[in-house]
């Protein structure tokens, strides 16, 4: 057993928290993953094991790290509803206007897990309804067992009507995560979100960092979409050369629900995001698009898995990797069509550009079909910029750097060209433009 795991399990825990206890027991059995685990083959696990894993005592009112001016300006420009600095949610200090307050009141905030026995909160426990097969990752179990809280959102039609808000109105929640230069160990944050039947939510997550920050964050999401619900989920940013992210997202979609996920990132020193989507209701749909621009000595590991468990469900996954310097990217994409999920339409396309000699990409698309009348397509490519196109552009007078820039930009933007929602398109454009502006 690693010293880290021992340390984890020695962390004090309230006996009444059954979810945590269960995760802890499981963790004790399976331990933390190492490079022999298929899903972790390309991730330098050892570098993760160097962290003091349990989170520091949470007392946001005492220790709020000072952030530099320009970072604060960047943050303010994003107009986040909630800010996490080193995994700790910051208390709102300024008096927000009524409208904002009203909005925030609709979301219950917990510093810690709700009591498992409380009936009202049972609805906000989507994880308990997820497939137990997936409780197989030590770091994810650690997130469940040792998280210091997170948002618990429950968006449903009644609360919208009660508040005099148009129940069909689009709700937007903006979160920002900041890695400061204060040493903060390895905080574990876990959000639980439920979007009620027919409701829709846009969740935007920004990742920012102080230039000399060196942090790790274990970030979990449990998301449940009830029948006909819609989630637009945008994650974007740059977590810095020395920071690490372990992300675990679990989504469960009921009949006719749909998720549209966009993950546009420059990654981190180590960036690992595993996202698993259970399409458990008839006609549920998952659209997911990732653009990862990985440079320097960064390492990114994107693991996506879609489980089709009901008839006529559909998935469309697009991942684009741009890797330069000594950057490393590994992409895993699994489309699993379970028995009974007849009429499924599932596709995955992963294209990667190697922009330097030492850049590295590993890609592993997986397709398993156990149902009938399934349409499935998956493909992965690793290549370089089109030499003919580069020469054509240069022969017209474009300097090489500009020609390369235009081609890499085109490669990245291609995946969002089909977005027809104007405000979403603008947000994605902004994120990609920012990402691609830095020298790749």
């Amino acid at each position, binding site marked *: 057993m690693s010293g880290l795991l021992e340390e984890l399990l020695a962390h004090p825990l309230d006996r009444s928290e059954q979810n945590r206890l269960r995760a802890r027991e499981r963790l004790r059995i399976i331990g933390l993953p190492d490079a022999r685990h298929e899903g972790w083959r390309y991730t330098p696990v050892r570098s993760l094991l160097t962290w003091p894993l349990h989170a520091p005592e949470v007392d946001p009112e005492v220790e709020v790290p000072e952030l530099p001016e320009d970072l604060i300006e960047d943050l303010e420009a994003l107009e986040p509803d909630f800010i996490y600095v080193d995994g700790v949610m910051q208390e709102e200090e300024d008096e927000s206007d009524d409208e904002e307050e009203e909005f925030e009141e609709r979301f219950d905030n917990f510093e810690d897990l709700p009591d498992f026995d409380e009936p009202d909160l049972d609805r906000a426990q989507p994880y308990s309804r997820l497939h137990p097969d997936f409780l197989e990752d030590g770091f994810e179990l650690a997130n469940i067992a040792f998280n210091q809280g997170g948002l618990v959102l429950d968006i449903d039609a009644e609360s919208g009507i009660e508040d005099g808000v148009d129940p069909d109105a689009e709700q937007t929640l903006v979160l920002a995560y900041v890695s400061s230069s204060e040493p903060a160990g390895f905080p574990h944050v876990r959000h639980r979100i439920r979007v009620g039947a027919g409701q829709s939510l846009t969740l935007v997550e920004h990742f920012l960092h102080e230039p000399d920050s060196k942090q790790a964050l274990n970030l979990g999401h449990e998301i449940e979409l009830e029948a006909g619900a819609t989630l637009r989920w945008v994650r974007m940013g740059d977590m810095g050369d020395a920071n690490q992210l372990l992300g675990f997202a679990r989504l469960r979609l009921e009949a006719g629900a749909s998720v549209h996920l966009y993950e546009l990132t420059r990654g981190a020193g180590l960036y690992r995001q595993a996202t698993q989507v259970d399409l458990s209701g008839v006609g549920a749909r998952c659209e997911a698009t990732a653009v990862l621009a990985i440079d320097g000595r960064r390492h990114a590991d994107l693991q996506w898995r879609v489980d089709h468990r009901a008839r006529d469900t559909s998935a469309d996954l697009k991942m684009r990797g741009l890797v330069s310097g000594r950057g490393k990217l590994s992409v895993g994409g699994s489309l699993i069509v379970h028995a009974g999920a007849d009429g499924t339409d599932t596709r995955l396309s992963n294209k990667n550009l190697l922009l330097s000699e030492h850049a590295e990409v590993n890609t592993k698309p997986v397709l398993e079909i156990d149902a009938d009348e399934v349409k499935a397509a998956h493909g992965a490519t690793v290549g370089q910029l*089109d030499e003919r196109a580069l*020469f054509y*552009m*240069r*022969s*017209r007078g474009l300097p090489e750097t500009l020609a390369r820039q235009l*081609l890499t930009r*085109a490669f990245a933007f291609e995946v969002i060209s089909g977005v027809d929602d104007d405000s979403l398109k603008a947000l994605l454009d902004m994120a990609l433009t920012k990402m691609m502006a830095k020298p790749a």
Partner: protein
Amino acid sequence: MLTIENLHVRVAGKEILKGLNLNVKAGEVHAIMGPNGAGKSTLGYVLAGRDGYDVTEGRILFNGEDLTTLEPDARAAAGVFLAFQYPVEIPGVNNTYFLRAALNAQRKARGEPEMDSMNFLKLVREKLKVLHLKDELLNRAVNEGFSGGEKKRNEIFQMALLEPKLAILDETDSGLDIDALKLVAEGVNALRSAQRSFVVITHYQRLLDYIVPDVVHVLADGRIVQSGDKDLALKLEEHGYTWIRERRREEQAALSS
């Protein structure tokens, strides 16, 4: 304007051009004809500076300057333009943006002020008309979804916009119907001037009815094997390239005896 002396070029380890000589003066139009695989496109690429087309012997002078030391974009700024035999589709790069970026990059490299978008669009409209290209093509990605003929006309349109000193047209006529061919010729003829030279590579004589050359060369097996006036093109059309091959054999036999 352009002086090529004893040019040897290797591509992928294979010698393609084997001692080519060519001298094009300002204001002249030279046609280069030759069978498939003779090295015509290779000549175009090596003039434009494509990677992997290595000059192993000889030299290329452009207005007295050694062209081979310049990067492709520097050659463009110096006034070299290649109309590609197979224009490249560049998805995701807007045509208008590309053209303006190209024009302004060239101007910047020459120390000229950049052109603002108003004047640029005016220039674009003017040149489009000559080639009867649809405005709508400007909003697409570079060459994406263009028909074969549109791609070729787009090459000439780019040339008209960039106003090079030396334009090399690589089989711009192939795949064009007679009307499109006339438009292309019109576009070229509109640009003919005492300061501008053309090297027109073609497989067929047909184009030369509309773009009347000063000199016609036959390129075969990596060398210019015959040069003459525009009547040479007609003779070639009549007798085919085997005629040239036979004549060469006779010449070589005469030389060795």
